[in-house]
């Protein structure tokens, strides 16, 4: 990797942030004006939402399982194994459900968006689209952003549910807990603020995944090698963004709701 002066480096980064902001802003603004590409939105919903079901369900389920298994060891020291349901439910709904679903969808879809749009960029298909009178941001970015935000919300709910179910399975079969007690404790552990926090996060994460994936795709340079680079950058940056924004949302929500 060539070394550049700090000034050039800073200018490049600021320029990238500016370009990203413009792209994200235009993608959102396009929602409120015509034409709207409904067919593309539904296609993306199918691809992003339904296509991500297996990895989201498996990740959520086994995260719930392992969470119950690990927490039981610590809770046993306090004689509070029966509280496993509380811990699994709170962890899944507030943190692990949204974050792991976001990371999984990012790995699968941010990379897919970057490579698909990047391939179109290097083969001049984006230029052709503009030459034919279509705004590529409206046609390609806006449907992906809308579809990801919408579908990630429901994927997170699903992940939370199967995570709690996985915790229940381990609690009942391996820890010998009562299923009714587990679900009762899980239900009692969750309050309005927890659910709001857990369901606010996927809205932001969905936006990050799609906008970052599309940004790197639309700014691909350097042929097929550039497509590979854009794909990697999209996954890395969107994953880091998700973790950082998760912290910021958690802090804000704790400030608002007090938990």
């Amino acid at each position: 990797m060539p070394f550049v002066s700090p000034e050039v480096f800073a200018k490049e980064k600021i320029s990238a942030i500016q370009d990203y902001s413009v792209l994200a802003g235009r993608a959102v603004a396009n929602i409120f004006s015509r034409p709207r590409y409904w067919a593309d939105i539904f296609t993306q919903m199918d691809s992003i939402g339904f296509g991500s079901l297996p990895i989201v369900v498996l990740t959520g389920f086994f995260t719930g399982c392992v969470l119950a298994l690990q927490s039981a060891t610590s809770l046993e020291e306090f004689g509070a194994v029966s509280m496993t349901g509380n811990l699994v439910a709170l962890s899944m709904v507030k943190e692990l459900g949204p974050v792991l679903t976001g990371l999984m969808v990012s790995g699968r879809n941010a990379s897919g968006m970057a490579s698909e749009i990047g391939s179109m960029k290097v083969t001049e298909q984006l230029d052709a689209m503009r030459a034919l009178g279509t705004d590529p941001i409206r046609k390609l970015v806006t449907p992906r952003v809308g579809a990801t935000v919408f579908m990630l919300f429901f994927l997170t709910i699903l992940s939370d549910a199967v995570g709690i179910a996985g915790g229940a399975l381990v609690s009942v079969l391996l820890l010998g807990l009562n299923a009714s007690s587990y679900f009762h404790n899980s239900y009692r552990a969750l309050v309005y603020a927890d659910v709001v926090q857990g369901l606010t996060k996927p809205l932001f994460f969905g936006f990050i995944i799609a906008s970052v994936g599309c940004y790197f795709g639309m700014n691909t340079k350097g042929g097929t090698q550039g497509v590979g680079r854009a794909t990697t950058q999209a996954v890395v940056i969107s994953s880091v963004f998700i973790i950082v924004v998760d912290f910021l949302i958690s802090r804000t929500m704790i400030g608002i709701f007090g938990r």
Partner: protein
Amino acid sequence: MATTLPNPSPQQAPIAEPVVVFDNVCIRFDAKPVLENLSFSVDRGEQLIILGPAGTGKSVLLKLVDGLLEPDSGSIHVFGENITAMRETDRFKLRSRIGMVFQESALFDSLNVEDNVAYRLNEERADPAESHRRVEEVLNFVSLPTAISKFPSELSGGMRRRVSIARAIITTPDLILYDSPTGGLDPITSTTIVELIVKQRDVSHTTALLITHRLQDAFTLATNRWNVEENKMEPIPNGGIDDSTRFLVLNEGRIVYLGNTRDLVHSEDPWIQQYLA
């Protein structure tokens, strides 16, 4: 060559007004100048053939005309409108009058030939039956009627180029930009593409800017015409030259020649003589 497209009626801009005007246009990439102080104009019905060594900014010039790139300085007027001062949303309207054939065809690989060719009509929500009829007509024009349901990956390089031409001309644009339409093709296929361009020029009288690396193709374009009765290309009698064809030669981002075919071949500029040789 089966059918021909109807001759479109001239639109809006008065005859005297040039279709494309470059005024002192400069563009640079990463501090490297690509085009410097380019000034020229293209009149209605004229065909400007752009020649020059690889990497001299020919494709950049064509993208500037379509507003796909913005110059660092200078102005570009297309159909009398300053495209450099326009917002991107306004450029989309202007581009509805411009057809562009890209260097590598740039067909949408997820769409079949019909959807590629009818892309602009579909975006305009045209009647599907009417759209299908026009796709068939234009595919007949480029002699590819059987490729309508194929995908770009199933087509040869020459067929992709012809589909790209069909996509560019389906809305009978007032200006066509050809970016190396014969690049990378075998001589027989190149001749087929050149025939299509001559046919489009002489049947529809569309203003065109054309980049080519093949001097042979450039001079074929300048010395041949389309015989509408026999539906084939033929040399202009008595060694004649097409009056509507002009040449623009670029070298290192600057214009080294702008004029007609006769003056180009008789140029005494040593660089041009070497280039043409």
